[in-house]
């Protein structure tokens, strides 16, 4: 049976891992590689690297660290952040990434998803969605440029509409980042996940809010997501991946041996 995926996410800025990893300010290139290797060895099913320098700065970002990651891990990994063109994506895939994830640039230019899917196949194209629950309207809305607070804006898209749209355009996987939960470690927004699961024919990854092992279980068992992504609980050592796998197995979730 297809195993549910445990996915650590590493935020990268100027070639070093930043958020959540308390390596102080002398983080060097090696840190990305060391963390990637550690998570792969501990049994992560895949890794996501989110380059947070990217979308907010309008410059070409050095992605050579992608190649270094590819050299040391033998599990799949996805690179997100600042991919605005087929050429950007090609460079990252040639460095050895398996998937590329687009978020803000896809909102600015939805046809980008189609061009990427046509060129590299839908299996390469992940769409990241930053979803925000607005109490006044009682709806989930998609936000753009969340990497830079001064530029963050609410789009015209409700999350269910955008989820439907990106699938039509060729997204092969959706990472739903639930912003109200992000960093809170109170668990994923299961109501939202269930709503989106019902609309999502491609693999769905939960992101934002994981703080305990039960949260992963609930994401998989209650919302039937294909993967659960988390950052700080892994970086801060609050959850150890081998323990999480053992726990999920006991809870009846199919995980890789």
């Amino acid at each position, binding site marked *: *049976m*297809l*195993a*549910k*995926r445990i996915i650590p996410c590493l935020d990268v800025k100027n070639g070093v891992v930043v958020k959540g990893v308390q390596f102080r300010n002398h983080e060097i290139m090696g840190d990305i590689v060391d963390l990637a290797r550690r998570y*792969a060895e501990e049994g992560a*099913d*895949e890794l996501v690297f989110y380059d947070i320098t990217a979308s907010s700065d309008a410059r070409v970002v050095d992605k050579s660290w992608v*190649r270094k990651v*590819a*050299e040391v891990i*033998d*599990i*799949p990994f996805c690179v997100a952040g600042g991919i605005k063109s087929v050429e950007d994506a*090609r460079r990252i*895939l*040639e*460095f*050895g*990434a*398996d998937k590329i994830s687009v978020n803000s640039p896809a909102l600015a230019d939805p046809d980008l998803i189609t061009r990427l899917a046509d*060129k*590299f*196949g*839908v*299996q*390469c194209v992940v769409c990241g969605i930053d979803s925000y629950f607005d109490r006044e309207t009682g709806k989930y809305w998609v936000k753009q440029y969340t990497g830079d607070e001064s530029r963050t804006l609410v789009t015209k898209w409700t999350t269910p509409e955008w989820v439907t749209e990106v699938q039509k355009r060729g997204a*092969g*996987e959706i990472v739903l980042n639930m912003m109200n939960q992000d960093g809170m470690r109170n668990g994923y927004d299961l109501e939202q996940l269930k709503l989106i699961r019902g609309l*999502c*024919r*491609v*693999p*769905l990854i939960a992101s934002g809010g994981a703080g305990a092992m039960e949260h992963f279980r609930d994401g998989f068992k209650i919302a039937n997501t*294909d*993967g659960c992504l988390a950052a700080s609980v892994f970086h801060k050592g609050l959850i150890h991946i081998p323990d999480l796998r053992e726990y999920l197995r006991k809870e009846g979730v199919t995980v*890789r*041996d």
Partner: protein
Amino acid sequence: MQNQKITVIDTGSANLTSVVIALRHLGADPVISTDEKTIREADRLILPGVGTASAAMKLLKERNLPDLVKSLTQPVLGICLGMQMLGLESQENMGESGESVPVSCLGLVNGTVSLMKTGDLPLPHMGWDQVSCVRESPLFKDIPDNSYFYFVHSYAMNVCADTLAVTEYGEKFTAVVQKDNFFGTQFHPEKSGRIGARLLNNFLNL
């Protein structure tokens, strides 16, 4: 193995890097090529592929590769789309008006490739899934039955006379195929951790 000549056939896909890295970790020194002499003289060949069957077959033809590949007698390993290209034909070819027109493949194994019927399960079939052996092969040496490998695909080859192993996702499909010197895996051994490395190593030691 160190003296073996390993050639990765350049099918134009963007992610040849991972295959090359995985082979290097096993002590091999692969070259990426479309050159006839390099391909003929290789001891082992890898046929990778990502994208669509129609685009990949078109590219092989542009590079005059189909007849050359068919004439090879040394072990060849097709990976993912590279495995699907070993089959008779693939439905993965959208015509101008959006209808699916089967594209002829290399015809080296007796399977045909079509869109997976998964019912309510998400597509693409993406992630780690179990591979069950249906026929003994040295390719599976020291690999426990039902081991997990990494898959990412929407089209799959039916179970056929040349199937070595199957995976079930909605329905059973060919996960590993072999006829004579031609081998193929639907999953990505180069992305399947230690167990994937073992399979690649077995291929190099056939």
